[in-house]
């Protein structure tokens, strides 16, 4: 799908966003009040853009120039509101069937049962929304949206109220569903961990503008780098594979994609062989000009300094160690270590400076 919209919300705030989203999770990340929900509302037709064009494949939903503005009810979208908006007077079954009333009874029954099963809520079919738990309500709301076979799914911070394990189970079921259906999922969140863990693509928004978009790694390396790091909370993110669990130590080893080095990181419930993403703050990485010894830190890498650049009172160093690390230093440290591009250095990372971004 392709989206290009402009909408003036108030004299102080306007939205101006342009992006493409393919099948799979596209995460829209940014601070609250950054225009994320307005953007989803424009796509859904609940807010009318002042200009722009929105299309899913060759189906045009909105085109200011051509005078097209498809009514909300014919856009064929799924939209999960923050408050879910389940119909309180209808049962789970009636809620899920609400969007497919036009189908004949056997087909309706078949579709509903398949969705209730996919989201493990068959046993709740006779209950009202007030009689089920928060996680179950999320599942019902997802089933209600997906049963209509939408062309795009819009999620507005859908899982913020849930604990991590409930959340990841629901996301697993959603991923499972989408593996078969392959529709674009626009997922709005203000939690960077969520964005970087789930997203095949990340769009960072600030003050109504898209300031970066692309693969998670590309986003961190984008021109608006400093702002993005501030929003996101880390400068480095690496793809890795879990190679060994060390339960007794409370850690596990992960092999970074690209440099074949093992990083010792805090233990999670990830299984060996599974894919993880590791985030590290540039200020949490130590640099040494000689191979360090006698350290408590578990991770030491050799690398080559490729770039050194001053940004305010910090010095930003880029170190190539098969993958590129960004490291922040003080000008004093740079002088003392006699750092210059091309110099061989060692990087030191504490296990607990490495956070696994996961949903």
């Amino acid at each position, binding site marked *: 799908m392709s989206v290009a919209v402009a909408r003036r919300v108030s004299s102080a705030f306007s939205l101006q966003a342009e992006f493409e989203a393919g099948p799979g999770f596209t995460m829209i990340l940014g601070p609250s009040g950054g225009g994320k929900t307005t953007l989803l509302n424009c796509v*859904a037709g*609940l807010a009318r853009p002042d200009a722009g064009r929105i299309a899913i494949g060759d189906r045009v939903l909105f085109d200011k120039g051509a005078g097209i503005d498809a*009514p*909300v*009810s*014919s*856009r*064929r*979208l*799924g*939209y999960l*509101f923050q*408050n879910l*908006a389940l*119909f*309180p*007077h209808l049962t789970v079954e009636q809620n899920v069937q*609400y*969007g497919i*009333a*036009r189908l004949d009874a056997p087909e309706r029954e078949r579709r509903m049962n398949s969705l209730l099963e996919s989201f493990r809520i068959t046993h709740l079919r006779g209950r009202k929304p007030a009689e089920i738990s928060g996680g179950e309500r999320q599942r019902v709301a997802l089933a*209600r*949206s997906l049963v*209509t076979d939408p062309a795009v799914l819009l999620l507005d911070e859908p899982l913020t109220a849930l604990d991590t394990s409930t959340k990841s189970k629901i996301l697993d079921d959603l991923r499972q569903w989408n593996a078969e259906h392959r529709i674009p999922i626009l997922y709005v969140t203000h939690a960077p961990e969520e964005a970087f863990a789930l997203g095949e693509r990340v769009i960072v928004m600030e003050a109504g503008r898209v300031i970066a978009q692309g693969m998670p790694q590309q986003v961190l390396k984008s021109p608006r780098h400093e702002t993005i790091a501030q929003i996101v909370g880390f400068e480095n993110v690496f793809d890795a594979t879990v190679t060994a669990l060390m339960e007794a130590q409370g850690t596990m080893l992960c092999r970074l994609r690209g440099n074949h080095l093992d990083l010792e990181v805090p233990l999670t419930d990830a299984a060996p062989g599974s894919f993880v993403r590791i985030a590290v703050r540039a200020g949490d990485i130590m640099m040494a000009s000689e191979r360090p010894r006698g350290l408590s830190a578990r991770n030491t890498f050799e690398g080559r300094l490729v770039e050194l650049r001053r940004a305010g009172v910090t010095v930003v160093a880029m170190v190539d160690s098969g993958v590129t690390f960004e490291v922040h230093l003080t000008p004093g440290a740079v002088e003392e270590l006699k750092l210059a591009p091309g110099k061989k250095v060692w990087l030191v990372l504490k296990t607990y400076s490495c956070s696994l971004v996961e949903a």
Partner: protein
Amino acid sequence: MLAWGPIFLTLRLALVVCCVLILIGMPLASWLSFTTWRWKFLIESVVALPLVLPPTVLGFYILVALGSQSPIGRWYRMLSGHGLPFTFAGLAIASVIYSLPFMVQPMTAAFGQIDRNLIDASSILGASRLRTFFRIVLPLSLSGVVTGIVLSFAHTLGEFGVVLMVGGNIPGATETISIAIYDNVQALNYAAANRMALLLLAFSFITLSLTYALNRRVWDVWPLHR
């Protein structure tokens, strides 16, 4: 001995007015709750006018509007062969206008309390406005709708000034309970007036109690209910 003529006439009037008001009031109330039109406060004021105007003022204007000099009056005379004032139809029209706020205001309040996301969710799921109204808005604001129906019904039962202005006092056509009570008092027939007044009081009290009880779910804490 109770005079049944005015009672039946009053009930028939209240019933007709109520049905007409549901048909007019519901779309009007939902429009008022959901529109973003900047001048809607003007319509709101017009709807609320009967609450503050003396019934005689309202009755006077309705009389003029329905009279043989007005376009409506002439049009009606052309169709039916007689005028609107001092007929049951004229009385019904006047009562509809007079009771309009009692139907529209509780409904508007009830519609306004519905979470907008529910309405948006319904459209996103492909439902038309009409389906959204009947499947989501109406069931969730039933208590407000019932309150509107009961209030406008009870209000029509008891109106006096407008009836006197527009309907006059024609037995079988426009003589309602309140007019009959007034007549009896004028004729110093206190016993007959009392019987009718008591009936109206009892009826009004019972309908209002039932409505409030249902709205507050008083039955949940009813001592005999267990």
